[in-house]
């Protein structure tokens, strides 16, 4: 309630009261308000945002695709480079490449997401002239998407780069230990005995099996990625769910906050379920229980 009337102290007592009644805040929090919210959620209604005065579901939906674009792009790049680097590091064990990869992933793990974002933002905007935030330049807002693709791409470079650098390390480590393990399997020895060259062994026999743990990590990482999106969207003023979450928090817009949290939690849980199902399809040794 403070969100609506807090900044406007001159609102009269009657208006305050009517606003309270309008949002159901005159009733006790438990059980009345709680049950009311649950009933609303069950019927697919996420309530109305206090600060934006629009249905929460509508607001969330309008930001969802921006976040999926950012997270998806960052994840795909991180997985691609992480798998390749991990493959090389695991294959060339105990070389400079392996040690370098390990040190890189440790430092990436220890670096706060938002700080890397700040550094890349400062460096990119000063030396490369990249935009300092947002999704599109102001003059391009509202134009059809296909006409502004280059502008969109330029705005995506820095946030995507931040996500990629931070998540690459983990995929690399998983891939490295997975490939080392796979290379010690008997079928690799068989393949070697058949006279296959090292690329065939690596590509046809090792890579496919070593990729399995990556699937689990992608899903488990999604919760972690959501955190990354909150930081990165805040730093780059990127108009997605993460920034919405942060705005709802500072404006104490609780219906919006609840809705965003519900959406994030549910999508992470669903992704985990999908990964479990996918895993049993990919690896016949794992039986669904």
């Amino acid at each position, binding site marked *: 309630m403070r969100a609506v009337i807090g900044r406007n102290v001159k609102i009269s007592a009657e208006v305050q009261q009517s606003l309270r009644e309008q949002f159901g805040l005159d009733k006790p929090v438990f059980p009345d308000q709680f049950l009311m919210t649950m009933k609303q959620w069950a019927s697919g209604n996420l309530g109305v945002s206090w600060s934006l005065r629009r249905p929460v579901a509508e607001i969330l939906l309008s930001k969802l695709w921006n976040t999926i674009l950012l997270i998806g792009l960052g994840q795909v790049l991180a997985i691609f480079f992480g798998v390749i680097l991990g493959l090389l590091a695991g294959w060339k064990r105990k070389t400079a490449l392996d040690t370098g990869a390990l040190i890189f992933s440790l430092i990436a793990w220890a670096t706060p997401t*938002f700080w890397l974002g700040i*550094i890349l933002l400062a460096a990119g905007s000063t030396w490369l002239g990249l935009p300092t935030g947002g999704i599109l330049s102001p003059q391009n807002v509202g134009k059809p998407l296909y006409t502004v693709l280059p502008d969109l791409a330029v705005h995506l470079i820095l946030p995507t780069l931040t996500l990629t650098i931070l998540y690459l390390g983990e995929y690399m480590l998983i891939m490295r*230990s997975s490939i080392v393990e796979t290379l010690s399997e008997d079928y690799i*020895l068989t393949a070697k005995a058949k006279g296959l060259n090292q690329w065939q062994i690596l590509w046809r026999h090792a890579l496919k099996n070593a990729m399995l743990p990556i699937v689990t990590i992608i899903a488990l990482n999604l919760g972690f990625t959501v955190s990354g999106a909150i*930081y990165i969207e805040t730093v780059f003023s990127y108009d997605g769910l993460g920034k919405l979450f942060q705005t709802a*928090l500072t404006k104490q817009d609780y219906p919006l906050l609840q809705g965003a949290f519900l959406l994030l939690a549910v999508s992470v849980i669903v992704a985990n379920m999908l990964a479990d199902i996918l895993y049993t399809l990919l690896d016949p040794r794992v039986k669904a229980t």
Partner: protein
Amino acid sequence: METWQRLKRNLGELWKSFRGNRMGLIGLGLVLSALAVAILAPWLTPYHPQQVIRDENGRGLTFAPPAVHPPLGTDDGGHDVWAQLVYGARISLTVGFLAGFIAMFVGSFFGILAGYFGGWLDNLLMRVTDVLLVIPDLPLMLVLVATIRQMQLKISPLTILILVIGLLYWTSTARLVRSQVLSIKERQFVARARAIGASHAHIIRKHILPQVMPLIVANTVLILSTAILIESGLAFLGLGDPTKPSWGTMLNFAFDRNAISNGAWWFYLPPGLAIVWVSLGCVLLGNVLEEMLNPRLSGHHLEGEAHIVKLGEAE
């Protein structure tokens, strides 16, 4: 007394094998140096973090580069950045360490109980950790911290941060300790102790705890790095205590008050480097300790190098 001597001997042996590990030594060095800075803060700078630095005309020095005001210049309000950094170490490390220790205590407590007694307690623990594992942690913490602050309970913002971080990050410790206890309680010496009539409390204290303790220590060091990172993140998003700025709060100020567009790199680089310094130190130290102390990792399949086909020689 006897326990103490055994502990001393164990620590001595631990140090002997630890000494040879370069990664571990670097990690220890990073952590200890940060602790030293936090403790010695008043002797490392003549300024107070909230003190406004003025030039000879009495005007506040805002965004003064390090060349003008060594060693790290001033921020938007004319405060000495180095002073903020060393005093911020106290806040960041206090919050991180206290939260980490809470996580350790809660996690070990539930882990030992669940592993030792099993049954419904074990079931409950596993389901709770399942839930906490999938819910995205940052949104959950943001909502919790914001809600608790909203209730105006007269708890300082830092205490709220410590409690929320500590009470959400115990699950990995609990799972690790539980699985360890499960295997220890099946061993002969526990069966013998029970046969001569030892109570549960005695068995846990004298037989289980000494065995899982090293593992708990290693895990705590790893949790510390997470706690320090997450504290910096929550503070960056504006949930720190503005009157007691940690490194994360400094970055929040730097970002909100346009340090980037003013080119004030001395304001936003050092706090981040400090966070990386400490969390990297904890990760290095924790990984090495875990390698040395976690019985499940010794004799790991990855060490059977003789079996690995040397692909490089395949041609």
